[in-house]
């Protein structure tokens, strides 16, 4: 048995998936948001829903720079779960429904275990978690279009981006059949982005092309000072966009939308 265990561990290669999002390339088209919803069986929002009660595992923020109107520039920031290496949501969950998967680095949200206390939502600084406020309802016939690789969620539980786990499972199956150890896949957002602004990679693999991207000077992350160690990287060569990273930057940026 011990020998078997050793052997299994050897073949269970570990990953640390992360993503790099090029904000200079992003046009804010929203294809990623749509692809994400379709991939993850997000039920169509009922009429009474607003942007604060709907499920958008991925959303694109429109941020304007502080300059006055004629010179005002805009950037679109796609935001989803940052897959933190030290997730603030994980240790607050009272019943172990959140787990940082040591094999993939993905922060798993176990909707089957979740009882909807929403403590993790309060704890997440990126507001990347969503609660199912309503019973999911698919118009007649639309349930046929559901992605069989992703279970639909019931009302009253918290969900979030799990880096298209269904696609990961499929890649795993493929690799197992091929006898390969190399699990590569594209999440729906990355695949659907017409500007190819979203790229996924294995942060653990020194030969992965993502390493070069991370080392670029224009790469930054949001709210690193909180110590959550996010695995989502953003890129921009524009100074004011980079300064969005922290709330109180030394230059004193103020991006409140008072107007």
């Amino acid at each position, binding site marked *: *048995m011990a020998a*078997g*265990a050793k052997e299994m561990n050897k*073949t269970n290669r570990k990953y640390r998936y992360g993503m790099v999002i090029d904000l200079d390339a992003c046009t804010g088209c929203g294809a990623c948001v749509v692809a994400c919803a379709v991939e993850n069986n997000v039920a169509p929002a009922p009429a009474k829903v607003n942007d604060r009660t709907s499920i958008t595992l991925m959303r694109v923020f429109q941020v304007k720079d502080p300059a006055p109107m004629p010179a005002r520039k805009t950037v679109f920031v796609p935001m989803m779960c940052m897959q933190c290496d030290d997730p603030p949501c994980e240790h607050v969950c009272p019943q172990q429904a959140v*787990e940082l*998967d040591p094999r993939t680095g993905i922060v798993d949200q176990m909707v089957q275990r979740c009882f909807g206390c929403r403590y993790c939502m309060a704890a997440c600084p990126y507001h990347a978690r969503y609660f199912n406020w309503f019973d999911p309802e698919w118009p007649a016939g639309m349930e046929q279009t559901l992605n069989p690789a992703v279970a639909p969620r019931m009302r009253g539980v918290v969900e979030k981006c799990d880096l298209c786990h269904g696609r990961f499972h*499929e890649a795993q*199956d493929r690799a197992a059949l091929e*006898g390969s150890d190399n699990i590569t896949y594209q999440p729906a957002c990355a695949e659907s982005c017409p500007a190819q602004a979203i790229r996924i990679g294995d942060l653990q693999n020194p030969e992965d092309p993502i390493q070069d991207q991370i080392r670029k000077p224009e790469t930054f992350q949001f709210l690193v000072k909180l110590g959550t160690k996010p695995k989502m990287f953003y890129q921009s060569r524009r100074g004011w966009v980079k300064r969005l990273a922290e709330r109180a930057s030394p230059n004193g940026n103020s991006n409140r939308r008072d107007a």
Partner: protein
Amino acid sequence: MRSGFFFFAGAALMLLGGWVGLPKALYKQQAQPLDFTHKAHVVKAEMDCTSCHDFRQDGSFAGIPRIDNCAACHAEPVGTTANEKKLVEKYVTPEKEIGWLVYSRQPINTRFSHAIHVRKAELKCERCHGEHGKTETLRPFEYNVVSGYSRDIWGRSISRLRRASHEGMKMDDCMDCHKEKGAEAGCLGCHR
């Protein structure tokens, strides 16, 4: 003293009644649409499991074979049994799928990869499905009236104390084997 005796006797009687009656009340039986003999196929026709239950190109498990799979041999009856006649007349000729009731169907939130377990970990089919390939008839499908899950998920033994190694397909059963093999997966390894 006497009242104490009656109390315990009554309690024992009710427990016994529950023990015997609960499984009957909890599980409902449903007959398979067609009686199928694994034994005839495996022994007489010398087929193995993967002859019918195989993987697709993309690595997903095909599971229960489709009707054209049967049609390959049974376009016309090869034997004389009534069952085979029924197969040909009712399903093969009109190209209608047989609505098999799957004993090992897991709840929708469970993901099980046959590719990983069969190809990578090299588990035998019998490890989880038992000697199903040697059965002569299909036993009736039993399902839990509350959850709708197949009885095989819990296993036939209500107490789960004395059960065969393949019996039971609960999460605990998966976890036991995973722990034993040192192949611990995260929650979303087996959930979706």
